[in-house]
């Protein structure tokens, strides 16, 4: 039974709380970052707590070939090889920073200790903090970094993060995001990341589990799921496509860099990265316009050709259009209904898209 879940995390939970019912089933790859995304009250945190065993739901849970919960057994939280980062750092106030970091480390078998204190201190930039006695004197961002380090030091086989940035101000968020991206790149631990901020998800996640009213309404690869027009994410103000591209050329005189993806390319501001570096970019639907003929005299650098794949009404005045670029990349474009009718846009039509802005995510 658990054999089938090798390389995957499969969950199916039912939980009835006083004012809320969770009825969530999904399957996600046991690699990379999976975002549990949805509005507040959609059950993201409850689902994460069920995965950790902190909430006792009925159902089943398999993590990479191991059964953590089925009809007859529930593995206790402290026996699950997981790391959990709570919304507030929740450092133990009676322990020093170092003792907080070592709390879990000391409690796993010496042979299980794959992550070492020095590594975590280096990764998370904790060398200035580790010899502080009172964790209450740390800033919010520092506390959260210690909490992440503390969780990593249990050498978890899955890392669960419950909106680790939501309690932080913008500065602390900016301070901590690079560390999260670094963990993403350097650790081979699958991460489940709860968030209600689309930009955070677009930046960090590889896989998306979308929740609404305690139910999973979609689960799939990030770039595919964000490009689906039937999901609420396509109708957010900051809806857009995520592009995984590679650095392909530098135009030094003009200070530009070309990113290649799916047989197409985009020019962005100069990136100090070697050729071939993988970068993630986000193109918001509101920054993409459509033309039926190649615009000749435009100041816009990035004009791509593609095929309209789907059009969906969005309120009385707007429509959202999905255009396939190259072999597989989708871009979203939000235009007015009038523009659609004036240009007679229909599915299957070849069009030119002008990309006004590209946000680099890493």
């Amino acid at each position, binding site marked *: 039974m658990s054999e089938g879940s090798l390389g995957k995390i499969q969950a199916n939970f039912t939980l009835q709380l006083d004012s809320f019912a969770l009825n969530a089933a999904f399957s996600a790859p046991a690699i990379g970052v999976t975002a549990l995304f949805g509005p507040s009250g959609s059950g993201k945190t409850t689902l994460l707590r069920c995965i*950790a065993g*902190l909430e006792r739901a009925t159902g089943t849970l398999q993590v990479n070939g191991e059964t953590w919960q089925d009809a007859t057994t529930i593995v*206790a*939280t*402290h*026996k699950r090889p*997981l*790391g*959990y980062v*709570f919304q*507030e750092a*929740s450092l*133990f*106030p*009676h322990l020093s920073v170092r003792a907080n970091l070592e*709390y*879990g480390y000391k*409690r*796993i078998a010496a042979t299980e200790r794959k992550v070492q204190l020095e590594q975590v201190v280096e990764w998370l930039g904790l060398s200035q903090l580790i010899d502080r006695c009172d964790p209450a004197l740390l800033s919010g961002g520092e506390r959260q970094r210690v909490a992440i380090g*503390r*969780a990593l030091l*249990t050498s978890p086989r899955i890392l*669960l993060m419950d909106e680790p940035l939501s309690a932080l101000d913008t500065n602390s968020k900016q301070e901590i995001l690079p560390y999260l991206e670094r963990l993403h790149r350097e650790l081979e631990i699958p991460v489940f990341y709860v968030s209600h901020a689309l930009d955070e998800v677009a930046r960090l996640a590889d896989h998306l589990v979308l929740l609404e009213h305690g139910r999973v309404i979609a689960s799939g690869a990030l770039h595919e799921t964000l490009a689906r027009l039937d999901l609420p994410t396509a109708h957010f103000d900051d809806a857009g496509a995520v592009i995984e591209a590679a650095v392909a050329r530098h135009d030094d005189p003009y200070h530009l860099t070309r990113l290649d993806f799916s047989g197409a390319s985009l020019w962005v501001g100069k990136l100090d990265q070697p050729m071939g570096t993988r970068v993630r970019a986000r193109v918001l639907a509101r920054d993409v316009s459509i033309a039926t003929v190649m615009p000749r005299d435009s100041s816009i650098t990035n004009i791509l050709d593609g095929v309209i794949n789907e059009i969906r009404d969005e309120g009385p005045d707007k429509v959202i259009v999905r255009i396939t670029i190259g072999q597989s990349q989708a871009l979203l474009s939000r235009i007015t209904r009038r523009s659609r009718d004036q240009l007679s846009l229909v599915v299957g039509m070849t069009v030119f898209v002008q990309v006004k802005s590209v946000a680099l995510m890493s």
Partner: protein
Amino acid sequence: MQTLDPSDLQAIWLTLKLASVVTLLLLFIATPLAWWLAHSRKWYKGIVSAMVALPLVLPPTVLGFYLLLLMGPQGLVGELTSALHLGRLPFSFAGLVIGSVLFSMPFAVQPIQNAFEAIGKRPLEVAATLRANAWDRFVSVALPLARPGFLTAIILAFAHTVGEFGVVLMLGGNIPGETRVLSVAIYNHVEAMEYAPAHLLAGGMVLFSFIVLLSLYLTGGKVWRVTR
């Protein structure tokens, strides 16, 4: 300068011994009870809370009276102890310990319970995700975080036992070296019009109680709450 006679010294020693034994026993009884009261959602939790708090409102003589009946030769506990050849409990040091434990119970349970409740679930959940089992979580997280509550409980239980009179008189009487504690000794002196030694003992008690309460407030421990 008035000095204390040997029987007064004996009473002081007995009082300290009683308070120490009672405080120690209370820690072992009150800790699990406070933990259960802080975390249980059982319907009968309210009943248990009320029973624990009962000595706060009952006259000590009422408690002493029922304990005397219960531990007497005709009482349920009395029959049990005589069947087990443990001897009789009333008018013995053991009987005083039992009475005092019950009487001082709320003073130990409530501060510890408050402390456990103040910790909340989160630190224990964090510890669980860091591989600590239930006992480990209790010892390494709950106990250290509840330390102020324990401090308050120890001081209050000890001091309250020292100051006890009604239960002792009903249950233990006035046997020198066995059940004659300080408060009873003061009563005896006053009855015999020996005001000088009564002053010495009573004044000592006032000073002792003041120091206890002062240390409590200075350490920032919260005094118990009487109602929930």
